[in-house]
Every structure is written in structure tokens, then in C-alpha cells.
């Protein structure tokens, strides 16, 4: 990658009118912009980000990339995403720190163990090589684990971890080279229907006093998406939920898989830099939520995380956290993403509601959304992800493997 490739600027020139305006410069918006610029080079595309490019969930997640889900559709889309990840560093010309050490799930109850056993059948039906392990086999895989109380485990060697930031830089610089205007530090303060050269579309008002007309607008603002939707009266049920995470001092490499203790919701992995990156499920957010993104951190989380982690990885007792932060999950009520034309506004395209697994799905979603925007091609998941399913009462829970 050239050291001077632009990855978005606060002073990037914005065209007066574009075919597609993508609001939100996270991995979803930028992967979509990049794929669109490859598929339809003549299309005028811009990305508008209110802060800096990795300021949202794309820069705050744990970097897990897995195909172990409870639902065949999610397994399949993640296998697409993993297949793209395999060559993505070369395509985007940046080191993504993609390391396939697998994901190891631990079950501490019979109910959880039978869920994992059922999932293996789902995985095999779509070709994912997940194996069932005993507690002893799990310990052979990661000798540092204390497997007391572990009933069963599953392992998929194709899963892995990445360093999230360079994904965003890579998509941004390659999209920018192909002519996508990426404007950072610029807030959208208003949006209304407007015509331009006798085309119907939307006028976006920016806090700088500028405005951009777009034939179609993609809402890729994730956990912030209700803000833009409210400006248009689009009523969707996804809401932010705060999740905390820590990174420890680095250790020399010892831990290949990302480990999930499914009953406590604990996950931990070792980054390529050597740090242990870890978090745990907190059903109640300390300090409360309030319907908008909240990026606080809490001692409650740190203590619960430390208790859960040191029980299963005793050597962690001696480790020091260097940094604790938080990021928003964009929670959809049925756990499925919200992608496609908005109810009442067909030219406002949502790509939201990914419920904590958007980052890992983004390589596949960027590609399928670009295809949809280009020629209307409908990937099978777009049927399930239709934004109007909530209003029509057609929402159904598919997935029970949501971690963190």
C-alpha cells in the first residue's frame, strides 16, 4: 500500500450530486463503497462519516471471524466472508492480521452441549468442518485451559481472528483510489426528498453548511442508525447495546483458537500482537442505556470479566489489562440484520441491525449489497433481512449463538 493513499479526509471534495450516498464510514459502508466502485466504476459514490473512520463498532470489536452459528444461513454467509478474507489482504494491499486458529466453544451444561451437537449437524449440512470434542480433547488443543465442569466442546479450524482497523483502512484506500469521495468529520444534520435534474432523490444537509443530492442513500451507521431514520420517519426496532472489552499486556504466542465459554458468554483470543483480547456477556448495562449509543466503561464489567477468565484460563491471574473500552452492538429484536429498502422510502437502503456480528459479515455483505444496488440481484439472505418484516409481523428468531 502506498503510504500516501487517502483514507478519507475532512476536506475531501464532495460532488454536488451522486448516485449513491453512503452515510457511515465503518466497515459496512466502506466495503459496500469498494465493491460498488469495482462493479460499477461509472457510478458516482460518496461516503460521509461524522467522526473518524474507525470511531464506531468497526474500530471497537474483538476481531472474531467465525462460521459456527446455530443457523444454516448465518453459517453460509460467514463461509462466504471467510472465503473473501482469505485473499483480501492482497486485494486491499494491507496486512489484515488474519490468523486462522479456529474457534473453540465450551459447554458447561447438558442443554448447552446438546445445542452444540445440534449445531454440528447444521454446519455439516452447509459444508463447515466443525468437530465435536470432549473436555480432554479441548485441553489437548489449549493445554492452558482449566476444563473442570466442561461437558463438551466444538472446534472449527477455519474460523479466526483479525485486527479490525486495517480492514477499514484497506477498504477506504482502495475505494478512494477508484474515485469514491470519502468525507470524514462531517455530520449529516438533515435529509429530505428532493429532485435534481428531474430525478427524484434526497438532499443531505451537512453540518458544514454544504449539501449533497443523492438518488439513493445507504444508511450504514449501525448503532447510530435510528438518528438518520428518525429524520425520515422510518420506524425500525434496532437499538444500541453497550459491550465492554479489554486488551492485556502482550504474551508470546501460545493461544491458537478464540475460546468461547458459552454458558458465561466469555470469549478470549490472542491477537497477533500477543495481547489477550477478551470480554463477557453483561445482560444489564452498568449505568443504563437510554436508546442512544453509550460508550462508558465499568468496574462491574472488569471484575466479572476477570472472574470468568481466570476460572477457565488460570495463567491470566498474573496478567494486567492495559486498556478497557466499549462499543455498541446494533441489536435487532430477532438477531438478524436489517438490510434493504426502507418501509415508505425504497431509495433509503438500510444495512444495519447486525447484533454484534457485522464486522465479520461485512466482506460478504459489502459484496451482496453492491450487487443489489447495481442490478437488483437478491442474495438469499436479503429475503430474511427485509426491513419491513417487523411491521408485517414476519420476524422470526433464527440464531442463538450471539456472544459477548
Amino acid at each position, binding site marked *: 500500500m502506498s503510504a500516501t493513499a487517502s483514507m478519507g479526509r475532512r476536506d475531501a471534495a464532495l460532488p454536488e450530486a451522486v448516485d449513491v450516498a453512503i452515510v457511515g464510514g465503518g466497515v459496512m459502508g466502506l466495503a459496500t463503497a469498494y465493491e460498488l466502485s469495482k462493479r460499477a466504476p461509472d457510478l458516482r459514490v460518496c461516503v460521509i462519516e461524522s467522526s473518524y473512520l474507525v470511531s464506531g463498532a468497526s474500530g471497537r470489536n474483538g476481531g472474531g471471524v467465525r462460521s459456527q452459528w446455530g443457523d444454516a444461513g448465518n453459517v453460509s454467509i460467514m463461509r462466504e466472508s471467510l472465503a473473501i478474507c482469505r485473499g483480501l489482504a492482497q486485494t486491499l494491499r494491507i496486512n489484515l492480521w488474519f490468523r486462522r486458529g479456529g474457534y473453540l466453544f465450551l459447554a458447561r451444561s447438558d442443554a448447552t452441549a446438546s445445542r452444540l451437537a445440534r449445531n454440528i449437524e447444521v454446519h455439516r449440512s452447509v459444508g463447515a468442518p466443525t468437530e465435536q470434542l470432549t473436555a480432554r480433547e479441548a485441553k489437548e488443543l489449549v493445554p492452558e485451559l482449566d476444563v473442570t465442569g466442561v461437558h463438551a466442546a466444538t472446534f472449527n479450524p477455519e474460523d479466526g481472528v483479525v485486527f479490525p482497523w486495517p480492514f477499514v483502512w484497506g477498504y477506504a484506500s482502495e475505494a478512494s483510489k477508484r474515485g469514491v469521495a470519502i468525507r470524514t468529520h462531517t455530520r449529516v444534520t438533515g435529509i429530505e426528498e428532493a429532485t435534481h435534474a428531474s430525478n427524484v432523490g434526497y438532499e443531505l444537509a451537512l453540518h458544514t453548511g454544504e449539501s449533497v443530492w443523492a438518488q439513493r442513500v445507504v444508511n450504514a451507521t449501525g448503532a447510530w442508525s435510528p438518528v438518520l431514520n428518525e429524520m425520515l420517519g422510518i420506524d425500525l426496532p434496532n437499538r444500541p447495546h453497550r459491550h465492554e472489552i479489554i486488551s492485556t499486556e502482550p504474551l508470546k504466542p501460545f493461544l491458537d483458537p478464540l475460546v468461547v465459554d458459552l454458558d458465561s458468554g466469555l470469549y478470549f483470543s490472542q491477537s497477533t500482537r500477543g495481547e489477550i483480547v477478551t470480554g463477557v456477556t453483561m445482560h444489564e448495562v452498568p449505568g443504563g442505556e437510554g436508546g442512544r449509543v453509550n460508550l462508558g466503561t465499568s468496574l462491574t464489567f472488569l471484575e466479572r470479566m*476477570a472472574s470468568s477468565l481466570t476460572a477457565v484460563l488460570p495463567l491470566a491471574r498474573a496478567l494486567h489489562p492495559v486498556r478497557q473500552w466499549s462499543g455498541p452492538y446494533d441489536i435487532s429484536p430477532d438477531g438478524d440484520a436489517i438490510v434493504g429498502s426502507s418501509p415508505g422510502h425504497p431509495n433509503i437502503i438500510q444495512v444495519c441491525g447486525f447484533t454484534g456480528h457485522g464486522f465479520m459479515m461485512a466482506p460478504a455483505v459489502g459484496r451482496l449489497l453492491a450487487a443489489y444496488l447495481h442490478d437488483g440481484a437478491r442474495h438469499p439472505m436479503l429475503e430474511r433481512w427485509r426491513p419491513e418484516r417487523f411491521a408485517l409481523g414476519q420476524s422470526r428468531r433464527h440464531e442463538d449463538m450471539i456472544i459477548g
Partner: protein
Amino acid sequence: MTTRTFICRCEDVTVKDCDAALQAGFETIEEIKRFTGMGTGPCQGRECMVPLCTLLRERGVPDADRLQPFTSRPPAAQISLGSLADGARISLTPSPTRAEDEGTP
């Protein structure tokens, strides 16, 4: 400072790396942290923040807002996960929510 001077010793970030970040269009310290990795090691910016600010002033970054240090993260002092786990048995006292990033990005 030469181009080979280390700004961040934890993560081996040099003046040249910071200049590359400026050329790529990153001007705020939050962005330079995430592009170069400066400040993400054991010192968490305690050592490298002042050299970076000095460099940015030298390079003509004009705006005091863009010289804001990145958000400092807990814990403020070193504490082991073992001590935290033992402490969890004594108290699970919620701390007040911090005002970090209230101007939602």
C-alpha cells in the same frame, strides 16, 4: 528529531510513520493512534503523547482541537486480573458512567 526518531517506544512508531499518517489525511490524535498503533502499548500514551503533540505542532497542525490527547482508558494503575477476580467476590460496585465520547460519532 529525525525521521527515524521513535515517538512511541512500546509500538516502535517513528516520526516517519506519523508523517505517513498525516499525508494519508489523518490529523487528529485518535486517528494517528489507530493508524500507527502509537499509544496502544503498555504505557498507553503516558510517554508518547507529548512527543507526538510536539511533532504535530512542528508539522503545522493548526487547530488546538486536533491536539486533544486520545481518550484515556481504564485502568489508571496496573492491577492484575487475579486481584480483580478476588475483588469481585468482595464488591460488585458499579462505577458511574463516564462522559467519554458523549458527542456521538
